[in-house]
């Protein structure tokens, strides 16, 4: 109880996985101890600071968090789309389909990007090139990755436009992005992402810019395509309701870290981490009218002055003994269920500050969720 636990190694590797070892075959994407830093004038921003998660083949994972938590930087790092400098991948491994893609050369990475893994961006207005027809842009992706003729690339593009529910695809093939509505553009983005039969699709806030009826169209489409093709999906969003309807597993991010992971049911119905609990209780529809909404006090920490202990400690209603000084690593609390909170540790495993006299009795631990 009085010994100081060295946690540096735990934070580097998630439970049951070790650095440098190829993950089992059924794991498509294995992100381990990933750290992406940005060196800016004012100092270093640890946008992603030790992220661990896995996606099995054909699985759907939702990465949830509020703005600035590092979820988009995580996805861009996986695609190797971070500008270096000012960015730096400071630590970690990204195993994709049995290869650590951080060790690949830029040209090897180009073969994977857009082909084996592809991305759907938030803003369908700006992620399509306005001076080319949408058909040309899809065919271009096919030609870049498949050794096919111009005509068969065109046929493939039309086939993909039809597959995402765009009426009269031959006509749409020749249209420019500005001639399409927001929902249609997002369908074109999905067609482009699917055109080379990727093993993994990363969708970064794919429906945030869309109206709710169009969002419903796009989510239904993504679900049905995912079921039909068996592609794995990493869905990044701030909207808990969107992940609740779309994915099997959820990972919650806060201040550059994963704080909780599990199946959608486990995380949303029985959240273990106080941040997830606060987030769910803040959704207006979970509270009857007239009752006050739950509030997570304060704001996210300044990235230049991250708390030394748990990053959620300054806002946490359950903070106790070790929280201020020690950063809790992810701990398995069930099969495939992880939480980074000292409340999930038995009292005997809690670290104690060297200078403090150990308390005579263990700090009473309030079990969250019971």
């Amino acid at each position, binding site marked *: 109880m009085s010994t100081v636990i060295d946690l540096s190694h735990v934070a580097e590797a998630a439970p049951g996985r070790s650095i440098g070892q190829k993950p089992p075959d059924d794991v498509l994407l294995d992100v381990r101890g990933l750290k992406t830093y940005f060196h800016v004038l004012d100092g270093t921003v640890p946008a992603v600071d030790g992220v661990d998660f896995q996606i099995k083949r054909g699985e759907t994972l939702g990465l949830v968090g*509020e703005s600035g938590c590092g979820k988009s930087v995580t996805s861009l790092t996986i695609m190797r789309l971070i500008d270096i400098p000012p960015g730096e991948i400071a630590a970690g491994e990204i195993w994709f389909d049995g290869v650590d893609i951080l060790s690949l050369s830029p040209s090897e990475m180009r073969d994977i990007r857009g082909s084996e893994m592809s991305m759907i961006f938030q803003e369908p207005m700006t992620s399509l090139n306005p001076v080319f027809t949408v058909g040309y842009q899809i065919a271009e992706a096919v030609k870049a990755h498949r050794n096919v003729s111009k005509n068969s690339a065109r046929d493939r593009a039309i086939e993909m436009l039809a597959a995402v529910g765009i009426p009269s695809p031959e006509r749409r093939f020749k249209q420019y992005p500005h001639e399409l509505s927001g929902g249609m553009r997002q369908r074109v983005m999905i067609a482009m992402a699917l055109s080379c039969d990727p093993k993994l699709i990363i969708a970064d806030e794919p429906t945030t810019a869309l109206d709710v009826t169009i969002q419903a169209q796009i989510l239904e489409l993504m679900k049905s395509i995912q079921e039909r093709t068996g592609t794995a999906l990493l869905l990044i969003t701030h909207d808990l309701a969107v992940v609740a309807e779309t994915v099997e597993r959820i990972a919650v991010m806060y201040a550059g870290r994963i704080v909780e992971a599990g199946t959608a049911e486990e995380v949303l119905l029985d959240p273990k981490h106080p941040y997830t609990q606060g987030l769910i209780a803040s959704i*207006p529809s979970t509270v009857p009218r007239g009752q006050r909404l739950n509030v997570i006090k304060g704001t996210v920490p300044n990235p230049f002055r991250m708390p030394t202990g748990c990053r959620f400690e300054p806002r946490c209603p359950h903070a106790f003994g070790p929280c201020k000084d020690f950063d809790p690593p992810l701990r398995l609390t069930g099969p495939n269920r992880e939480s980074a909170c000292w409340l999930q540790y038995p009292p005997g495993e809690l670290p104690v500050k060297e200078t403090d006299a150990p308390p005579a009795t263990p700090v009473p631990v309030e079990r969250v969720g019971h």
Partner: protein
Amino acid sequence: MTGQLPIDPAAAASPPESPASGEPALVSVQGLVKYFPIMGGLLRRKVGDIKAVDGVSFDISKGEVFGLVGESGCGKTTLGRAVLYLQRPTAGEVFFDGQNLSTLKANKLRRMRSRMQLIFQDPYGSLNPRMPVSDIVGEGLLAQGMKSSTARERKVEQTMQAVGLRPEYCRRYPHEFSGGQRQRIGIARALALDPDFIVCDEAVSALDVSIQSQILNLMLDLRREFNLTYLFIAHNLSVIEYVSDRIGVMYLGKLVEVATAEQLFKGARHPYSVALLSATPDPDPRVRKKRLVLRGDVPSPANPPSGCRFHTRCWLRERLGNPEICSTVDPPLHDTGGGQMSACHFAEQVSVEAAEEAAATQSVIETAAGAT
């Protein structure tokens, strides 16, 4: 008030009637129309109109929160601005506390404005980065003739305290605050003039959910404390359900349904409201309902469909075998019982069961069809 919209100004220029509750209406909107001209051709002549708001009537009682929900481009922001006379309506009347705003002279309207304020969506774009908070919050006081700077300062400090900001912060500039704090500044600016009525235009849409709940709590506290009346414009149904007493659903410049929050969420009476509710994702993973997905996109407000504006995407019309009346006659907003108003020819056939049946039979891939 009937749903038959008095677009003829002469017919509409009567003083507001009392709504059903018997409380006098603080704000009464009658047959409001706002068109924006489309200029085109070589001589930049007017070639058409964007019919942003096309005949909208509703009342807001004192102390009520009236929620206005709809998708982008349906005219809810234009309506909010036209109600405040920030944009002069093309036709129709707005009565505020019994006074017809269209007959007020500019200086009287300006004085009236101190009683009606606006909170904007974007907490970044709506605050002047070159002004300290004290000037931002105090600018309205100065404009309304509070010349003494000490009196202004005192009022600014009081207001900042009311919205949960430390008065010491009043010399700081907007960039020194987080998004949630900036939205509090925006609220303080609206509150400084002791208004009776505030239009909140997507006031929490740009905020993260944990900050959003702080601001929503604050707005409801202020309503109780200062006896405020809100017109709350949002596209997020769960926010609208939480804050509103009554809700108006807008589609392509028209109100298609007006109901209390409970009526709307338990039994909507317009096919568009039903589809909107069905499309909203539920944070409970056990409720993986089969969604009713609308076909295509919202038609252009420059050239809205004939008859009922929703008929091109309507799932109910399809189920009823495409009756002709939908594409020829514009359905008026009428009472369907208990004060619940719906603008649908077949409002009595709208039910949760019908929507679920329609959802079960639709195919996902087809849903883009109909949009051209």
